[in-house]
């Protein structure tokens, strides 16, 4: 029987928080004016937008004029990388060098690959077995023509938090622009653009209880990237398109709430997450992926040998549990996740990955149910797997 849904995929997306919904609603039917209009009705929307911008800036220890609203994290990442590349070209430096990592989100990776096709050179730094980037390796990769370092703040699949402040200090010492994709970090761990020494930071509203379709690129003054989106000159001429006022207001309300609640909520999530990490890693031939110490509060991730991730997800779905996997079969690609391969997992084992990402709606009862259901599904799938030795309770393969 299907019981109430347990949503354990908050790293994928979150429900709109009640505070964000309440803040947004008036802007659909009442305060719907265009912030660019001269009349008071439009100017009210403009001032509300600016208030939202100010609140977002406070949450990041930034200045309001450093906050640019975008359509989401992906646009922010695209803008950061392509904008820096174009800026370098405008300054007469074609085909510069970019340093990033092997475990970035595709919004960064595919943009870097796009730039490679256009003559830029990209270094994809490896990570260790826990998914950590070595700041010394970042420094060692710097070349005279390096125009940008882009390292994600926290990984979406394994939850590993990178030493961003240390990398930021290196970038600053070498006078190289530094971007961080902080989509998984903002609202979940303390983020301070000054302490981190970042020039550019991407975030996305729907990862912390804000609406989908709105994000932010933080751009440290006096850096002014050329626009990615051209048009009517909104966002100080940097990002055209009529402002998504309800989106910005909702993002701002959700972020303010997440940051206010962060110490208490992250302690609560860590306690729940650790029960999942400890409980499930006790299963034979099961390991936690990512770092145990430098880890997002809500993210628990695993690999189960002898089990394929998509089959695991479908069985969990039938039991009312929403989770995700970096297995090849859960996507149109036939290779398992680049992140799991980058932390050194063999293909065969990377196929058996599971990510549980907790959020405000998850309870102790949810964790108890997952600790009961997940081992049962893993056991069931192993029993029908030709690569699982039922007698010895271990995989038959040597990888």
């Amino acid at each position, binding site marked *: 029987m299907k019981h109430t849904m347990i949503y354990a995929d908050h790293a994928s997306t979150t429900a709109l928080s009640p505070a964000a919904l309440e803040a947004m609603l008036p802007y659909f039917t009442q305060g719907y004016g265009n912030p660019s209009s001269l009349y008071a009705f439009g100017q009210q929307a403009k001032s509300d937008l600016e208030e939202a911008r100010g609140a977002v800036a406070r949450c990041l220890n930034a200045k309001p004029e450093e906050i640019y609203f975008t359509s989401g994290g992906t646009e922010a990442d695209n803008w950061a990388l392509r904008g820096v590349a174009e800026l370098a070209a405008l300054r007469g430096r074609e085909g510069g060098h970019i340093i990033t990592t092997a475990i970035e989100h595709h919004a960064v990776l595919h943009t870097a690959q796009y730039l490679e096709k256009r003559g830029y050179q990209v270094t994809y730094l490896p990570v260790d077995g826990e998914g950590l980037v070595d700041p010394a390796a970042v420094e060692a990769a710097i070349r005279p023509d390096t125009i940008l370092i882009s390292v994600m703040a926290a990984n979406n699949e394994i939850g590993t938090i990178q030493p961003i402040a240390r990398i930021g200090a290196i970038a600053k010492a070498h006078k190289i622009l530094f971007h961080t994709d902080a989509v998984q970090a903002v609202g979940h761990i303390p983020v301070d653009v000054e302490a981190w020494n970042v020039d550019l930071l991407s975030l996305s509203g729907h990862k912390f209880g804000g609406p989908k379709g709105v994000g932010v690129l933080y751009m440290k003054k006096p850096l002014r990237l050329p626009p990615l989106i051209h048009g009517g000159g909104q966002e100080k001429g940097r990002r055209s398109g009529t402002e998504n006022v309800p989106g910005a207001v909702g993002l701002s309300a959700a972020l303010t709430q997440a940051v206010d609640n962060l110490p208490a909520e992250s302690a609560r999530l860590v306690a729940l997450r650790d029960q999942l990490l400890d409980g499930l890693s006790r299963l034979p031939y099961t390991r936690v992926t990512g770092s145990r110490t430098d880890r997002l509060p809500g993210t628990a991730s695993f690999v189960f040998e002898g089990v394929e*991730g998509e*089959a695991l997800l479908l069985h969990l779905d039938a039991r009312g549990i929403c989770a995700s996997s970096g*297995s090849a*079969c859960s996507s149109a690609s036939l290779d398992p996740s680049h992140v799991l391969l980058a932390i050194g997992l063999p*293909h065969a084992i990377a196929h058996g990955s599971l990510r549980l990402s907790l959020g405000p709606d998850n309870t102790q009862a949810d964790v108890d149910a997952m600790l009961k259901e997940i081992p049962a599904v893993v056991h069931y799938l192993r029993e029908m*797997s*030709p*690569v699982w030795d039922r007698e010895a309770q271990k995989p038959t393969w040597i990888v």
Partner: protein
Amino acid sequence: MLYSEKVMDHFEHPRNVGELADADGVGQVGNPKCGDIMKMYLKIDGDVITDVKFKTFGCGSAIATSSMATELIKGRTIGEAMGLTNAAVAEALDGLPGYKMHCSVLAEEAIKAALADYYKRQGKPVPDSLKLPCEDEEHGGCCACGH
């Protein structure tokens, strides 16, 4: 939904899961690297496949195609089983997403591998139609995903 109701039915309630200790032919195809491995066990009496069991490591469609393939050949003659195509398995499941078609190829190949094993055990020459394109490769199995 990603999958048809039939695929989900065969995934959630797979038919003929298990092993046959006294199988007359056993075939395994796939590769752990690709995330799909199927093993088929056949019990053959005269010309008729009297029992079939399978074990599969793989995604939802890999399990569903294995299950459906066993149903399609159980009680059939060797000749009928040899003629089973991956398209027929996919069709019996009301279709598969395009990028999952390789799972149905694997099901067809698992049956062929088990039949080939049966011929070998009988000391009979293996018909050409049962020879898999990459049978001699090091990984010992066939795989449509390029690894």
